[in-house]
């Protein structure tokens, strides 16, 4: 899905320009401009294509403005032509109706192409892993149906494997966003939206809610850790072995408004996510994604069934606690 060779070269030039504008350059903090997976890469390419196409208009127009304003200023010694009644030129007007039409046509082509592409698994060779995401007031619940584990405000995924996020909410509408891996999608009660993301390499990324949900909204940030498949399997094993189970009551507690630390659960009530969705969908689950039925796993498959996982043998006792993010800035002082 990359834009071929020519945009790449121009991208470098544009990046250099951006760097000088932004002074700080494109350091790691520019998460949108540091794609770490195929989806974010596609979007990064589109951003660069659109910057280039827009620059084709912006730069000459600003230059022309400066020139005209200077050239035709009303000063006593200005000898520039003055034609007060020259107000029409079909040739010129055809030109500037056409320029934006051509630019929009080019941009429209790339836009439509990638709009369709991003609805699909970005990595056709690998079977995607499913993670269910629920936005609550004000924390994120992640349930892993294939592994039957759950986490709160923390996401761990294997790198090189596309992840299909199935996203819903039991709270006001939020938006699930991991900028380094790709753009966001809304989390809405009674509906399931679908988003494919993939991390190409191990690493840690910021994730956050991007649609305002009230008082604790700013604290709905979470870390995403991409590991190798082995490490991921190992982590799942530890979670299963060392953390408590999530009961229905635990979920009821969790969904009450308030902040939460990072939590992990060795299991979650069967069909929890589907139940959350159907609670608000009046018996007709609204699917806003594409081919949901193919990938839904509602059959109570509670065994460890990560694709390609080997029975992890290594056991690292201290590993579990390291997955928690004690440095996550939380101020649990909400007055509820």
């Amino acid at each position: 899905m990359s834009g071929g060779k020519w945009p790449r070269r121009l991208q470098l030039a544009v990046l250099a320009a951006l760097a000088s504008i932004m002074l700080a350059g494109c350091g790691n903090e520019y998460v949108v401009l540091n794609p770490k997976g195929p989806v974010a890469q596609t979007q990064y390419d589109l951003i660069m294509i659109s910057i280039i196409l827009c620059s084709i208009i912006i730069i000459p127009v600003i230059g022309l403005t400066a020139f005209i304003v200077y050239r035709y200023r009303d000063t006593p010694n200005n000898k520039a032509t003055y034609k007060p009644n020259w107000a029409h030129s079909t040739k010129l007007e055809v030109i500037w109706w056409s320029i934006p039409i051509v630019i929009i046509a080019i941009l429209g082509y790339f836009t439509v192409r990638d709009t369709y592409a991003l609805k699909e698994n970005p990595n056709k060779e690998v079977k995607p892993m499913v993670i269910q995401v629920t936005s609550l007031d004000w924390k994120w619940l992640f349930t892993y149906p294939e592994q039957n584990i759950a986490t709160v405000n923390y996401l761990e995924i294997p790198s090189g494997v596309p992840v299909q996020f199935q996203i819903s909410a039991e709270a006001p509408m939020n938006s699930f966003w991991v900028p380094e891996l790709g753009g966001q999608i809304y989390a809405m009660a009674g509906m399931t939206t679908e988003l494919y993301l993939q991390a190409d390499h191990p690493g840690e990324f910021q994730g956050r809610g991007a649609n305002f949900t009230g008082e604790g909204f700013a604290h709905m940030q979470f870390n995403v850790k991409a590991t190798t498949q082995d490490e991921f399997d190992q982590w799942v094993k530890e979670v299963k072995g060392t953390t408590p189970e999530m009961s229905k009551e635990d979920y009821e507690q969790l969904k009450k408004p308030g902040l939460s630390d990072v939590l992990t659960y060795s299991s979650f009530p069967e069909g929890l996510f589907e139940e959350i969705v159907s609670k608000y969908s009046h018996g007709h689950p609204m699917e806003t994604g594409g081919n949901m039925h193919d990938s839904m796993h509602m059959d109570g498959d509670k065994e460890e069934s990560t694709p390609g996982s080997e029975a992890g043998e290594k056991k690292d006792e201290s590993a579990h606690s390291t997955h928690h993010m004690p440095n996550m800035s939380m101020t649990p002082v909400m007055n509820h």
Partner: protein
Amino acid sequence: MWESLKEFCSWFFVTGDPLIYGAMVSIALTMVAIVFVLTKYKKWGWLWREWLTTVDHKRIGIMYLIASLLMLFRGGVDALMMRVQLAFPNLEFLHSDHYNAIFTTHGTIMILFMAMPMMFGLFNMVVPLQLGARDVAYPFLNAVSFWLFMFGAMLFNLSFVIGGSPDAGWLSYPPLSQNDFSPGPGQNFWIWGIQISGIGSLATGINFIVTILKMRAPGMKLMKMPMFSWSVFSSCTMIILAFPILTVTIALLYLDRFAGAHFFTMDGGGNPMMYLNLIWMWGHPEVYIVVVPAFGIFSEVVATFAKKKLFGYTSMVAAVMGIAILSFFTWAHHFFTMGTSANVIAFFAITTMLIAIPTGVKIFNWLFTMYRGKISFKQPMMWTIAFIPCFVVGGATGVMLSVAPADYQYHNSYFLIAHFHQVLIGGVVFGYLAGIYYWWPKLFGFKLDEKLGAWGFWLWNIGFYVCFMPQYALGFMGMTRRYYTYGWDLGWEPLNLVSTVGAFLMGAGFVFQVWQITYSIKHGERDTTGDPWNGRTLEWSIPSPAPFYNFAVVPQVKDMDDFWRVKEEKANGTYKEEPVHLEPIHMPKNSGLPFIMSVCWFIAGFGFVWEWTWMAIIGMVGVALVMWARSFQYDTDYYVPVDEVRRTEASLGRVY
């Protein structure tokens, strides 16, 4: 008794925040001061006769302008408070609730209670004069519109000292804005403040459409109508198509909250996404409603100060009307991220991009109006020139946002924030300021001081770029809008601090403008000719300030820039002096009913806000009574005798 009063006050008033107590005290002091001054100088009767009951479009325009400048101040203070809170990570200047209320009121006020009335103020001040008309088509309705806006705005603003401000964002998305998540009267204040003023907006839209279609001076064919009036026509077309959607949508939201309906609730069969669709079906045309008149202003200003005919008039008319139509087909781009099918997303991405075409064409036409002109850099022109690069960049980032898959990365980030502030400040605010500077002498009879204006201009402009360019970068850093705080670990702090500095520069620019106005009242250059800028259209042919009947003789129009034609013909001696024949002028009578009716609406609105049904009923009965009374009023107009017209004109230096 005392205890129950205390109890009442504790939930009726907003308590516990020193900033709000300060605001309460200053509001009380201001009101005492106003009452004192009016009483001491025996001005109550004057206020009632000359202003509260007026149906004169120019006075209504002035009142709109004053109200919108006050609202600009309040919305600006909101903005500065937000910027202070975000200047450094983990600041505790504002708590989450307070911050949420402030960004909500900032957005609502700036769009609905600042931009809209400033725009209506300009419509009122200019359109009848530009058309050669003596008033708008429905002067009484015009007063109704203004007072509905005014009392709607007052109801909305009351919420920050009484009951609590709304805090679910400027468009109050459900389910967050529903009772479950936003109990209390705050959201109701939002609904009723907008509802009441929205009725006024719709009426203004109808009023100006009819004015433009029916009240043009003889000879002014539609294709000879000045560009500003065309832009008003485009804007009003959008108003009458879009505002009913707003009215119905927030009425349904109120039914959800008040009567337990389930239109947009999370449970019970409601669909919050329906609200998003409906509100943006109004909301997207709304941004064009406010920006298209700014395009009209730039067209007038550019032609006047380049001393050259507007380039590509026909293209410009096609562009503003094209925008009016296209604006109704782009709403879903506000939520590309809701996960609809690729077909829907692709459709709205393309329609959004299409808007860039007519908009881009206008930029070229303005540039080529200046090309081979003679540009003088007076204040209205300065704002127009500053607008072009600002809007080109803002428009380009808008095109970037319309690239749907990329929008998944920009959505709700500071990139979006920077974009819409760039088009709304660079387009709407710069445009309206240009318009205010341009037409100020026509309304008030004096120019605004150039030197203080230059300070205001440069502070606004430099401040704008310092404030908003870093926000594009913050968007690329993943900073999400509506965060009341952020941590040190994200690297967001340097650019946020820069942005805050920029916001204060703009604030300083506003202070200079207020100073400029107060200074110019005494010292501003008087306009004795009625044509201070060497203008081109009809409004400059009459004295400044314009007499209450506008035109002693209704002009015969032959050209788009008719006054320019007359001046040229006079200069080269081809002008044929027509014999002037003064006739009695038919004018509408003042009426207190619009004011009284709006007070009744305010009472009803207050009752609806607190869900005090008895009070709402009293208010609505009052509204009905006023309408009933008006239907039996037959003595609503009068004729200004020829003698009085002659005397008035003579006092303004024109002899007939």
